[in-house]
């Protein structure tokens, strides 16, 4: 028991140290772009964390996580522009994402695997091209150009997308939100609720006959996942200053799923890694292009993701982080000591 507890606090400590380092680095650069990318990295990490919950824990495939991010971002932008306090608007946005998640989860009670994936593609595409773009929903999506969000304050601290300090504040707040969310998600993973999720992933038949309420836990898994994606969406307008349809397109949903699998869909730290990768690598590519004088496009980023996925599936099927965790695990000695069985029922 105690060994498990120390293992747990060691992991927690290591994770917090890593986040603290990541928190201070952007403050050394008084540069809007570097700080905005840092904040975006956390937004992506939250979105990918939602894939970890749904696909990694509950075993349900979803290709509409970007839609959950989007519904929350648009709702926040809309309510803010109708005069609501930003933070209250954000909470409502997250709640809406939760509800949409539960709704999308309904087909999952009947479908699984590729069929469920197709249904979520349908959800993603219809939101992408209709609710997020069409003039018929201008009251919600802000019409052409979307909503703009200039600034918000919380306890006297200013958050905006134009001053380096404002962005740095958003980044720190986001990081704190991510850290708390990640801890709660790990707690769920290691508890009875998490075991029920994972039981559904490994064998639905066994889960049902061992007392797991499939309906409740599948819907809960979808709702929880969409809620975490909604957190990413609620902060998006603050960091970028604008909500438009493009960042929540089906294509981003695919990238979230792809990066989650690449880094290790069953692991929370993989979400952080994937967020950083997703935010900084395109920037890096553009800079490489600038230095070498070559015309390097954003598309190359997708080529890299595709190639890495192929390599990863072959060499490290449990993802980059899964592979690392396995190597570390092998270094540690087995802890359990077994008492000699005395009154066992076997012969």
């Amino acid at each position, binding site marked *: 028991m105690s060994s498990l507890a120390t293992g747990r606090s060691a992991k927690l400590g290591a994770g917090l140290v890593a986040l603290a380092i990541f928190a201070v680095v952007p403050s050394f650069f008084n540069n809007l772009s570097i700080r905005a990318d840092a904040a975006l990295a956390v937004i992506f990490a939250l979105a990918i964390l939602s894939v970890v919950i749904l696909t990694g824990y509950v075993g349900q495939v979803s290709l509409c996580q970007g839609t959950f991010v989007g519904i929350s971002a648009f709702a926040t932008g809309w309510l803010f522009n109708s005069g609501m306090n930003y933070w209250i608007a954000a909470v409502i946005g997250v709640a809406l994402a939760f509800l949409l998640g539960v709704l999308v989860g309904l087909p999952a009670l009947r479908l699984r695997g590729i069929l469920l994936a197709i249904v979520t593609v349908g959800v993603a595409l219809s939101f992408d091209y209709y609710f997020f773009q069409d003039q018929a929903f201008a009251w919600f999506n802000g019409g052409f150009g979307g909503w703009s969000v200039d600034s918000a304050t919380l306890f006297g601290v200013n958050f905006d997308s134009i001053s380096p300090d404002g962005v740095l504040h958003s980044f720190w707040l986001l990081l704190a939100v991510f850290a708390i969310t990640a801890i709660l998600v790990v707690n769920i993973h290691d508890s009875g609720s998490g075991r029920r999720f994972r039981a559904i992933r490994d064998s639905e038949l066994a889960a049902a*006959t061992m007392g797991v309420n499939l309906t409740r836990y599948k819907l809960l898994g979808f709702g929880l996942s969409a809620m975490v994606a909604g957190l990413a969406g609620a902060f998006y307008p603050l960091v970028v200053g604008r909500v438009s349809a493009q960042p929540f397109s089906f294509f981003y949903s695919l990238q979230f799923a792809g990066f989650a699998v690449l880094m290790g869909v069953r692991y929370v730290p993989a979400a952080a890694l994937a967020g950083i990768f997703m935010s900084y690598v395109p920037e890096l590519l553009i800079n490489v292009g600038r230095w070498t004088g070559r015309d390097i496009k954003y598309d190359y980023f997708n080529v890299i993701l595709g190639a890495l996925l192929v390599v990863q599936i072959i060499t490290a099927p449990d993802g980059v982080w899964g592979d690392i965790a396995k190597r570390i695990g092998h270094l540690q000695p087995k802890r359990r000591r077994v008492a000699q069985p005395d009154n066992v029922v076997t012969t």
Partner: protein
Amino acid sequence: MSLLKVEHAGIAFGGVRALSDVSLELNRGEILGLIGPNGAGKTTLFNLISGVLVPDRGQILFDDKQTAHLKPHERAQLGIARTFQNLQLWKTMTVLENCMTPQDALRGRNIVADALRLPGAVRAEHEARERGEGILHALDLLEHADELAGDLPVGLQRRVELARALCMRPRLLLLDEPASGLDATETEELAGLLRRIRDRFQVSILLVDHDMSLVMRACHFIYVLDFGEMISAGRPEQVRDDPKVIAAYLGDAEPAAAEREVTSKDKKSPAKPARRAGAAVTPEEVAAAGSTKRREALLEVHNLGAGYGGIQVIRDVKLTVGKGEVVACIGANGAGKTTTLRAISGVIRPTSGKVIFNGIDITRKPAEWIVGRGMLHVPQGRGLFPKLSVEETFRLAAYSGSSSDNYDAAFDAFPVLKERRAQLVGTLSGGQQQMVAMARALLVKPELLLVDEMSQGLAPLVVQQLFEHITLFKDQGIAVLLVEQFVDSALSVADRAYIFEQGTIVREADAAELRRDQAVIAGAYLGTAAEVDGVAAEAPVLHADLLDELTLKLPAEIKRALEERAIKEGKDKDELAMELLAGRIER
């Protein structure tokens, strides 16, 4: 009094009756057996009880309460736990987590409390862990507690499933084929284990197995299913001697079973001459069998051992097949017949021993290479391509075989298929599909044909016709090694037979001789165990001292004894019990 009552339950899948009018009663504290050949509907009945399937008719009462409207997880909460024939552990979770999950589910713990690690959640976690470890300890699994369930060998996984089920504090434990993959001694140990589990955990057990040796040892009372109907029920020794049960297991030469299958008279008439023809060749078979010794050996198998994922399924198998000879492998399900065929044809890798074919050592050679040497394996389930037409299937076979485009031989042998040459194989009936598989084999022109469970899922009449075609191969000088459930039919065409029991060959015999000696076959299928086992002797007699308990709690054994006496005397069992108690009749 009874814990579980199944009343006239029936279910059909797309027109096929899987179960019809099945009734069963399980008393508290009883280990009840449910047996039957493959496809009899045992697992279907399990699925009805655990709520995975909903019956079309009839009802299932648990603790005298209706269960029809209850979902699987609600039934689990009532105290019905089960294991699975094809293991359903949560493989990426540790063994301990596997045991904690059912407890979490029954407590209905709150996800918010879990996320925030509130004191209540932490306490529940400790309790689940402690109980899980306790049960793992009791089943001698504690040393594996932190290993992933999927990493364990299959034998241990079966034990983990048992532990997981016990963690639910069940009142009824449904065990689906717990002995599959175990050898004779392990099976014997399992029987003892089940009794100790019943006593220590206070559960009633419903045990399904198609191998009777475990059921004979462990159970007080046995029900027998065949083709979705309850054909017999009784004490182990009664069931074993029941001609209907023997017929169900041996695929019958009994007219009763034939009538059950074939209802219309015109269909029945061609079957009878066929059977007579089968009997008529017996003298020739004797002669053929006599000449076996002089025949040149085509296939020699020496001390073959093989298995799946670390579990040894067959060991020390020795057999020979002469050129042009038909040899049958018979024995109970799980005795290792199919595995032997697979190890010979290279589908799985043998772990020990040697396979020599036509003088060449083919042990551990790739399957497709072995086919090239002239050995063809028609697997269980026929291995056809459902989306190809009959003609395409033959063209493919002719191409890979003799490289000629001539597949008339196939249509000559099976004229029925000629009319259906353009039909997709997947749309043919089971019997016709089997004909296609055999015709295809004929086109490849192998020297040795391995046929696995040709009759699976087919009605006896169709089976009879198919067996006549086996002689086709023999006429062409093709040797055949048959694995078959329908023993009598198999023996009618075979020259020799090997009897498999518990993963090895226990006897080799002349087919015709064996046909006459039904007792040997019955032993192989129904287990010789019960004769030597103590169950029969232990069975309690209705005794005066025990009657005192009747007023309080009626042990299962006594209730059965009472029922038996009631049937014998033609009285109502409750009435009889009252009379006994009142001392009105002789004890």
